[in-house]
C-alpha cells in the first residue's frame, strides 16, 4: 500500500512539469517580441553580407549617424569619391561660396525622391541642419557646425547657409545625410520612430533593423544615381573580434572588418583576400605642458627620436600601419613632407639632445636634472589592447635613453581629470580637412578644455597658421598655413605621433567592385570598406 502511493507520487515529477510550463511561456513571450517579417533585401541571390563591430545607436544623421557621408541610406548635398574629393550629390553642382566666405548656396538636384516616394525639397535640407542646431536635439554634431548662423530656403530648389565667420572647409561639412522634414512633423527628433526605421534618399532603404543582430537593406530602385548593382546588403553586428573571424571562416560573410592579426590568418587562404586600407586614424602620445618632465622641450624631442615607429608597425600592428609624424595623414594634399623623420629609432640623436639640455644619467640609469628625475606616467585606456601595446613599446624605447615611463591602464573617467599633468596615448584623425580635428586639438584657445587640447599646448605660430587655414579660401594660402602648422608641431612636439593605422578587412574572392579609400577613425555601417557597396557584385 505504501509502495503504491509512492509510485503514484512518482509519476508526476514536479520539476519537469514546472520547467515545461516555463519553457512554453518563454517561447510565447519570445514569439510576441520577434520582429515582423518584411519583404525585400535579404534572401535574394546576390545580396551582400558585411560584418562590423560598431553598431550605430540610431540611424538618424541628425543624431550622428554617418555624418561624413557614405551612410548607404542617406545622401548629403555633397559626397566623396574614391579619392575623398568632394563631388555633388543632392546638390546639382558643388555649392558656391560668396566672396566674403560667409554665404554658401546650394542648388538641389531635380527629381530626387525619398524612399517613401515623396520628392526632396530645400525645406528638407533646412530642417536637417536646423535640427542639428536645435539645443533640444541630442546632437553632438552641433559642435562641428558652430560656425553656422542660419540656413534658409529662398525657393524649393535652393538652400542658403549663412556663416558667423568665413570657414574654408565648410563644403566638407555638407556630406551630412538629408532627412525628410515631413517624417518629423509634430515629433521629438530625439525620440522619433524614424531613428529606428529611417527614410532617406540613399541607394538602400531599410527593411529591418534588429539592434545587436543585423541591419537589412534593400536596393532602392529609384535612386537618382541609378539602381544599385546588387539586390541588397545585410550588415551583421558582431562585437567580438574572434567571433567575427570564426563566422567569416564559416562562410557567413562576404566582407568583414577584422583586427590585423586575425586578418593575417586569411592571407594566402583560398577564397579570401585581405584588404589593408590606409586611414587618417593616428595614435600618439600626448605630452602635457603641465608636467615638469614632459613640459621640457628636450625630453619631448628626445622621445620623438627615440621611439621605434617601424618596430611598432611591424610588431604591434602586424604590418597594418605606417609611421606617423604629424596629424595630417600622408594621403592628404596638405601633408608636409619635410616633417617626415626616420621610421626607426635614433637613440644616439636622442641621448645627444638630452645631454645638451643637461639631463645627466643617474646611478640607476635614469637621467636627472636639478634633482628631478626624467620620469613620467603614461596613461592608456585599459580596455584598448592596441594602445596598451603602444604604451609598452614607448616605455621600452624611453628606457633605452634613460627616461623612465610608467604605463598605467585606466578607465576614461579616471584618465580625464589627469590629462593636464599625465601623458596619454590618444588617437583620432580625419582624412577630410586638417582643420577638422587639429584646430581644437592644438589651438591655444582650447587649452585644457576637456578633450580639446588636453595638454595645454600653446604656440602663437601654430595658432596663427590654424586660423589662416580656416579663414582663407585660397588653396595655396591654406597649404602654406598647414605646412607652417605641421613644422611648428614637429619642432615643439606636443605629441609624439607614433603610427597611422590601416583598417583591415577580409573579403571573399567572389565579391567584385571593392574600391578602398582612405578611412577616418570612425567607420561602421557608414564609411567603411563598403562605402561604395552599391557598385559591388557577387559571383554565385
Amino acid at each position, binding site marked *: 500500500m505504501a509502495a503504491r502511493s509512492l509510485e503514484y507520487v512518482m509519476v508526476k515529477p514536479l520539476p519537469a512539469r514546472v520547467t515545461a510550463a516555463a519553457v512554453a511561456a518563454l517561447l510565447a513571450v519570445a514569439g510576441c517580441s520577434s*520582429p515582423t517579417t518584411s519583404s525585400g533585401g535579404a534572401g535574394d541571390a546576390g545580396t551582400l553580407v558585411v560584418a562590423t563591430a560598431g553598431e550605430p545607436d540610431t540611424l538618424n544623421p541628425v543624431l550622428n549617424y554617418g555624418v561624413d557621408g557614405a551612410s548607404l541610406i542617406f545622401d548629403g548635398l555633397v559626397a566623396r569619391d574614391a579619392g575623398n574629393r568632394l563631388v555633388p550629390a543632392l546638390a546639382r553642382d558643388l555649392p558656391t561660396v560668396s566672396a566674403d566666405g560667409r554665404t554658401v548656396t546650394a542648388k538641389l538636384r531635380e527629381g530626387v525622391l525619398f524612399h517613401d516616394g515623396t520628392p526632396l525639397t530645400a525645406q528638407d535640407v533646412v530642417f536637417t541642419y536646423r535640427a542639428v542646431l536645435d539645443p533640444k536635439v541630442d546632437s553632438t554634431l552641433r559642435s562641428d557646425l558652430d560656425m553656422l548662423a542660419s540656413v534658409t530656403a529662398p525657393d524649393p530648389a535652393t538652400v542658403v547657409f549663412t556663416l558667423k565667420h568665413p570657414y574654408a572647409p565648410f563644403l566638407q561639412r555638407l556630406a551630412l545625410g538629408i532627412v525628410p522634414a515631413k517624417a518629423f512633423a509634430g515629433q521629438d527628433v530625439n525620440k522619433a520612430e524614424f531613428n529606428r526605421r529611417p527614410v532617406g534618399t540613399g541607394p538602400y532603404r531599410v527593411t529591418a533593423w534588429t539592434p545587436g543582430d543585423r541591419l537589412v537593406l534593400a536596393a532602392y530602385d529609384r535612386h537618382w544615381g541609378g539602381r544599385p548593382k546588387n539586390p541588397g546588403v545585410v550588415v551583421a553586428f558582431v562585437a567580438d573580434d574572434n*567571433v567575427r573571424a*570564426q563566422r567569416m571562416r564559416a562562410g557567413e560573410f562576404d566582407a568583414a572588418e577584422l583586427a590585423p592579426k586575425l586578418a593575417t590568418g586569411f592571407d594566402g587562404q583560398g577564397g579570401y583576400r585581405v584588404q589593408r586600407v590606409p586611414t587618417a586614424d593616428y595614435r600618439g602620445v600626448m605630452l602635457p605642458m603641465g608636467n615638469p618632465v614632459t613640459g621640457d622641450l628636450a625630453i619631448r624631442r628626445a622621445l620623438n627620436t627615440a621611439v621605434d615607429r617601424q618596430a611598432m608597425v611591424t610588431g604591434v600592428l602586424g604590418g597594418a600601419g605606417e609611421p606617423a609624424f604629424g596629424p595630417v595623414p600622408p594621403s592628404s594634399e596638405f601633408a608636409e613632407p619635410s616633417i617626415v623623420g626616420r621610421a626607426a629609432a635614433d637613440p644616439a640623436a636622442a641621448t645627444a639632445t638630452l645631454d645638451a639640455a643637461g639631463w645627466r644619467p643617474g646611478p640607476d640609469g635614469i637621467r636627472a636634472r636639478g634633482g628631478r628625475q626624467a620620469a613620467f606616467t603614461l596613461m592608456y585606456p585599459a580596455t584598448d589592447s592596441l594602445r596598451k601595446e603602444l604604451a609598452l613599446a614607448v616605455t621600452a624605447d624611453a628606457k633605452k635613453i634613460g627616461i623612465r615611463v610608467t604605463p598605467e591602464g585606466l578607465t576614461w573617467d579616471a584618465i580625464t581629470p589627469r590629462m593636464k599633468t599625465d601623458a596619454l596615448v590618444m588617437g583620432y584623425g580625419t582624412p577630410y580637412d586638417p582643420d577638422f580635428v587639429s584646430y581644437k586639438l592644438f589651438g591655444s584657445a582650447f587649452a585644457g578644455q576637456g*578633450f580639446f587640447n588636453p595638454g595645454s599646448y600653446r604656440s602663437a605660430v601654430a595658432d596663427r597658421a590654424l586660423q589662416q587655414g580656416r579663414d582663407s579660401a585660397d588653396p595655396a594660402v591654406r597649404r602654406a598655413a598647414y605646412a607652417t602648422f605641421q613644422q611648428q608641431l614637429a619642432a615643439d612636439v606636443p605629441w609624439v605621433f607614433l603610427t597611422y593605422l590601416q583598417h583591415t578587412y577580409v573579403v571573399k574572392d567572389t565579391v567584385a567592385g571593392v574600391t578602398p579609400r582612405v578611412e577616418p577613425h570612425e567607420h561602421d555601417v557608414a564609411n567603411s570598406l563598403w562605402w561604395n557597396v552599391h557598385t559591388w557584385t557577387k559571383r554565385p
Partner: protein
Amino acid sequence: MTAATAGRRRLAGAGAVVRRRLLVAVPVLAATSMGMFALGAASPIDPAQQYAGAAVFTTSEENLAQIRANWGVDDPLPVQYARWIGNLLRGDLGWSTSRHEPVTSVLAARAGWTLLLVGTALALVLVASVLLGTLAAYRRGGWFDRALRAAAYAVQSMPVFWIGLAAIAVFALALGWLPAGGLTDITATGTDPADVARHLVLPVTVLAISQAPWFVLFVRDAVAESLRDDHVLAARARGLPGRTVLFGHALRTALLPFLTLVGAHLPELVGGAVLVETVFSLPGLGAVTVAAALGADFPLLAATTLATAVVVLAANLATDLAYAAADPRVRLDD
C-alpha cells in the same frame, strides 16, 4: 486519504504566502531601485560623453551640457528618482541614454531572447543533471561516476567564453552542422521558429554545459547520501526493484534541498547568458546591460535589475510552493 487531497491541504496556505511575499517584494524592489540611483549619483561616468562616443573629441562642453540637460541627468538625485517612480507608475520605464530609445522598447525587443535562452538552458541542465547525477550516485565510484566527476571539474574550470568558441570551432567550422552565431540565417527575411531553434542549439547547450557541473555534482552527492538513508535501505530490504528505489525513494528525498538552491543559482545563470550572448552574437539583454553599466544609463540598468529581482523573487516563491507540494513535513500555513 488520497494523495490529491493531501497535496491540496499542504498548499492550503499558498494564497496567504503569495500575498505576504508580494508585500515583502514592494520594499525589496523599492530598495533595489533606490540603490541603483544612489550608485548612479556616485558614478564618475558622464552619460553624455559615453553617448558621444568617438565624437567626444570634437564635441564642446556646452554641447554636452545641453544634452545632459535634455536628459535631466544633472538634476538632484531625489528629483530624478521621483520622476522615475512617477513614470514607472504610469507604465513608462524611462529613456535609455545608452541605447537612445525608450527602455520599454529595449526590453520588448531583447528580453524575450534572453528569457528563451536562460529558460531552455535551465530546463536542459535540470533534466540532464538529475539523470546523470542520479546514475553516477547509483554506481558510486564506478567508471561512469569517475568520468562524470572528472568532466564536471574540467568544465567548471573552463571559461564560458572559451567553451563557446570551442563549440563554434568544432560544430560550425569543422563539422558544419550548426550555425556559428546570430539569431537567424544572416540573409533570412524574418524570424522563422525552426531557423531560430537551429541557431539556439549551440548557445543553449553551451550555457547548459557551463552551468551543469554545479547541478550535477550536487544531485550526485545528495542522491548518494540519501541512498544510505533508513527509508531507502528499508525500501531495498522490502525487495523493491532498483529503479523504483533509486528514482522513487532516493532521488525524491535528495531533490528537496535542490529545489530551493535552483532559485538561488539563477543569477549565475543570467551572468553566463550575458557571455553566451556575446559569443553567439545574440540580440539579448546581456550586451545592452553591460553597455548601460559602462554608460551610466540608469533607467535601463534599473529596469533590467528590477526585472531580474522580480524573476528571482518569483522563482523563490515558486520553489517554496513546490517544496511544500513535494515534502509533507513542510506546511505553508504554519
